[in-house]
């Protein structure tokens, strides 16, 4: 691969798609057999757009995030598929080439503010090293850029904070620093895996507000992984619903909420109580999400689906184009 071809920040496609994932599959080789937490996942994200990936535990959403950055650790491995970042397939790159993409092409924010920063290195230290790795040459430039980044994520007294260690910061501030680190080298895509799940509601809303602003300013493409439909409704432009390793429904946020095509999506949406309602009982989904090493034949959701037919239990459902930009994997979708 030539240097030119590696540069992932120039000439995006005309339709604005920065990240294009095609049939991405990640497997884990366990003693009990091969488990497929990411099974033929495909989606596109455009510049300035936020794609939400919604799923519960065991759905494979976190594995997807790691797979996009090729950070899965043995015994897991990316088995097949493409991850096209500005046209360059990240799956085909060598490790050294991929290292250059990490941070400068794609950034990552994870869930737990308690452990997301290194406890024995100062905030400034971690920022400066990241900047130096991806090309900011002089100490001066690194330092001033670090301060600017902390300002962007709305950390008060940013110059002083460079000397701070992570335990001197609150949970919300730590997540902001994590955000600054992820965006330090101006990647075009940001993957956020439940970044606010461990934060208080008021801290969360401020954080999301900041993230939205950053996105607007730099036209970032964001992949936002969450289980919270409230966040999805308020942050995302498009939604992908993940179940047992597969994307069972993908569409615009409006479509997903108003006309969900997949029974799982529908059931999930109706089981979330809202403050304005006063139900006697909450609609719920019987059973629990399947264990990945014991997936049923046919549709993985069939055992819990109120509309399951024999066909569903026998063969895996096809992908149905429900409407423009809206697809679902269900025998009943139309």
């Amino acid at each position, binding site marked *: 691969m030539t240097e030119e071809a590696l540069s992932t920040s120039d000439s995006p496609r005309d339709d604005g798609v920065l990240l294009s994932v095609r049939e991405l599959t990640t497997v884990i080789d366990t003693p009990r057999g091969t488990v497929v937490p990411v099974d033929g996942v495909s989606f596109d994200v455009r510049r300035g757009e936020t794609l939400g990936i919604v799923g519960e535990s065991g759905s494979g959403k976190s594995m997807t995030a790691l797979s996009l950055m090729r950070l899965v650790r043995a015994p897991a491995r990316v088995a097949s598929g493409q991850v096209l970042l500005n046209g360059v397939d990240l799956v085909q790159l060598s490790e050294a080439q991929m290292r250059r993409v990490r941070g400068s092409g794609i950034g990552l924010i994870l869930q*737990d503010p308690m452990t997301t920063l290194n406890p024995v290195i100062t905030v400034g230290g971690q920022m400066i090293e990241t900047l130096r790795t991806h090309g900011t040459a002089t100490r001066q430039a690194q330092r001033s850029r670090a301060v600017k980044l902390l300002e962007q994520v709305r950390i008060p007294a940013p110059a002083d904070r460079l000397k701070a260690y992570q335990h001197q910061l609150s949970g919300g501030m730590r997540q902001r620093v994590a955000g600054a680190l992820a965006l330090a080298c101006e990647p075009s895509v940001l993957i956020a895996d439940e970044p606010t799940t461990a934060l208080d509601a008021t801290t969360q809303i401020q954080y999301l507000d900041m993230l939205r602003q950053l996105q607007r300013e730099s036209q970032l493409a964001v992949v936002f992984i969450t289980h919270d439909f409230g966040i999805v409704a308020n942050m995302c432009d498009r939604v992908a619903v993940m179940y047992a390793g597969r994307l069972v429904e993908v569409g615009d946020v409006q479509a997903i909420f108003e006309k969900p095509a997949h029974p799982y999506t529908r059931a999930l949406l109706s089981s979330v109580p809202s403050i304005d309602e006063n139900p006697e009982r909450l609609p719920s989904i019987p059973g629990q999400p399947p264990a990945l090493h014991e997936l049923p034949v046919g549709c993985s959701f069939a055992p819990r689906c109120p509309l399951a037919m024999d066909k569903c239990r026998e063969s895996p459902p096809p992908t149905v184009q429900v409407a423009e930009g809206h697809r679902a994997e269900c025998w009943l979708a139309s």
Partner: protein
Amino acid sequence: MIRYVARRTIAALATLLVVSIVVFVAGRLAGDPRSHLLGDDATPDQYAALGQKLGLDQPLYVQYFKYLGLLVRGDFGDSISQHRPTLELIGQRMPATLELALVAFLFATVLGLALGVFAAARRGRITDKIIQFVGLTGQALPSFWLGIMLIFLFAVHLRWLPASGMRHWDSIILPAVALGWYFLASFLGLMRSSMLDVLDAEYITMAKSRGLSPLSITWKHAARNALLAPLTFVGVTLGTLITGSLVIETVFAWPGLGKLSIDAVLAADYPLLQGCVIVFTALYMGAALVVDLLYVLVDPRVRLFDAGKEGV
């Protein structure tokens, strides 16, 4: 910080006091120096006379308080078997022990910790298994056997290193290795398992996600955090090395405090024995304190929290 050091010093002095009592009593129980000095055919009168001269005819607690009084004035008494001031003898032999302990310490910590990092970074691969095996030998093989084998291989067979004594600059290598091997294995194991925990942490994944170099991730981001766990044993290790060199000093004829103490026990030489034990204790605690203070430098969290929190 000052309060911490003061607290530790006071605790050390209290320990020394208790040790002095214990060793005083134990030494008296171990034997009577008069039998060594006078031989089998001594008369009861000669026995009694010598006893009076040495102050052994007085009640135990009187002997002890006399001793304590002299001790705090820095007078450790004269060695019964070697007829010279105890402190002088100890002073003569202490450098050798300290030297040996220090070299063994550096060998065990630096190499042990580094190997632990390596093994963890190459987890599951051949390098890891080899290093782990090395660690196993360290914990399984008795140090005196190891010492003898090292002599056999390197001194007798290959003639690369001297077999005993302290004459050449490289005389210290074999005894230091034999002495430190066990601790090398300990640090290796501790560091490896600590590294494995750290490598699973979210901040390591985050560091990787920013494209940082693997070398930086292993040594700067991971190892510094993993260091905190084995570091708690470093203080104890240095102390143990200083006070535990008896066997190695004997095997290698290394003229240190260990050998001196054994001789003192065998001769029931109370003053010398007491002096050795007290000096050993002081060295042990001093070493532990110094290293614990260094710990504060390494972990920023310890530095900043001085006093603890108490519930009402």
